[in-house]
């Protein structure tokens, strides 16, 4: 059992990050921390992809290096996904700046109360 877990430790960690991210996204009342949770969630997925590219004893995928090669494709995919993630974070933070300007707080439940009081 322990051995099985140890050999899959990277997968375990990446899925743990998914859990941590989801929890932060749902449970945290601070909007910026919600966005951080979203980032952690995405990072978990990025790491999952990178782990799948790993080949034991593999070298970088360059023709002069000896075989076997680590798979380069997941790295390329994740580069794209990281760019998407950065844009999402930028848009999210832009929205949060507007929300802060409107309500003067970043706390979700305080904002909720302010709307109900109106």
């Amino acid at each position, binding site marked *: 059992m322990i051995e099985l877990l140890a050999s899959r430790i990277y997968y375990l960690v990446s899925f743990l990050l998914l859990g941590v991210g989801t929890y932060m996204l749902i449970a945290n009342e601070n909007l910026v921390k919600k966005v951080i949770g979203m980032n952690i969630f995405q990072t978990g997925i990025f790491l999952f*992809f990178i782990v799948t590219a790993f080949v034991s004893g593999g070298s970088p995928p360059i023709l002069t290096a000896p075989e076997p090669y680590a798979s380069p494709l*997941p790295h390329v995919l994740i580069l794209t996904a990281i760019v998407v993630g950065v844009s999402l974070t930028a*848009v*999210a933070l832009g*929205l949060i700046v507007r*929300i802060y300007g409107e309500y003067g707080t970043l706390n979700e439940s305080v904002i909720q109360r302010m709307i109900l009081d109106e």
Partner: protein
Amino acid sequence: MSELAVFPVVVPLFGSLAALLAGLARSETGWPVAVSTLFVQAGVAVVLAGRAFGDQPVRYVVGGFEAPFGIELVIDGLSATMAVLVAVVALGVLGYARVAGPRSNAFYATYLLLVAGLSGMSITGDVFNMYVFLEITGLAAYALVASGEGGRSARAALKYLLVGTIGASLFLLGIGFAYVATGTLNMADLSRQLAEVGYGSPLVQASFGLLVVGLFVKIALFPIHTWQPNAYAGAPDSVSGLISALVSTVAAYALIRLVFTVFTVEFLLANAFAQTVLVAAAAVSIVLGSVLAVTQQEIKRMLAYSSVSQFGLVVGAIAVANGTALTGAAIHLVGHAIMKGGLFLTSGLIADTTGARTVAEYEGLVERFPVGAGAYGVLALAMVGVPPAVGFVGKWYIALGAVEARSWPLVVVILVSTLLTLAYFARVIERMFFREPAGDAAGEGATPAPTLVTDGEGASEPPLVSAGMQATVLLAAVLAIVLGVAAFEYGQLLEPTIDRLLA
């Protein structure tokens, strides 16, 4: 000349850039740029559709990298339908947005970016490429929802962003599982290799589950629809018309594409559980979406919940997985886009003319604003499924497909759904046409009533209603009827495509 296949993505992308650059020279130049771009876009989409409805889909390999390695664009009847729908609806909503909508060039740049993302999702033949376009669509949609003024639209957009990102990330994780199982990302290649890996493999099953749940978030099915009413109600009227008509529709198209092109019907047959989950999600969505719609007071929120229930129907058709039901799904996707986009624009028009934004304020509307009330009535009845409107044809095919597949629980739910749809539209129609305006509501008729709602325009601006806005709304109402007549022909035209999907 299959190079034409890249233009549905490239044209709006360059148009978006042009709108931004034109804004540097002169402000409020975005609208003409967007209109000319979308005319070109619609032309390209129609020409492509003319070719795609043949025996073979149009294929184009981007950048000269051969198919399983490079990115391939595949346009069959269904993709072409979506591409034409996206171009036409976006063009139509522009007719409304010229006077009503946000007018900045940045708005039109984002608008065209959304069109590029949606067209890309429709025509791509590569799952990772689809993820990228899904995120482009998402980013543009978040920004468009936030283009309204005030805190409400910003909060709605942030919620949409957080939930939508989780959905898209699950989609990405599903792609990861499929990639681990097969080592390929091309849809046609994936479908072959997934069959070799075996449909019982946990990797393949997990991949299916993640992809489907990710798209459920984007389609806004019942338990994960929570972003959608806020986003539709918080956005400016022209934006809610656009995204309610297109974003969930193209996500539902993506679901059809993944379930039938990538995983194929054999996967559903091998995994009865997957089919059960689809049926259950559809049924729950249809019933609870309608129930929630009945309880709403604000018209735009009611329409949003109505979408939850209507997309339940489409997912039901996917679960049934036969030719009749899929034809129904395609017709209903197109019909719903026209009807729901039209209803959102009509409610925006009514709000700008009379200030009415809640069900109660619609009392006696026919006397104050006959055009709006008439269009709303026609579109609402089309949505309920009164023949010969397009809403009827779509539901008819889906119900017929469910009967053919002997999926009785779904048949019952689909028939009940018509009654439920009637339940929430009847109370609006009854108030509009058969009640005298309440005393105080009629007195304030000319000025916008002070509601909590903040829309795209600032409170200081007088409500502007242009001929373009009225024409767009009337066009949608006419289309909802005309398409119903044309739908049977379209169903036959789609037959080779559906046969290929189910092969």
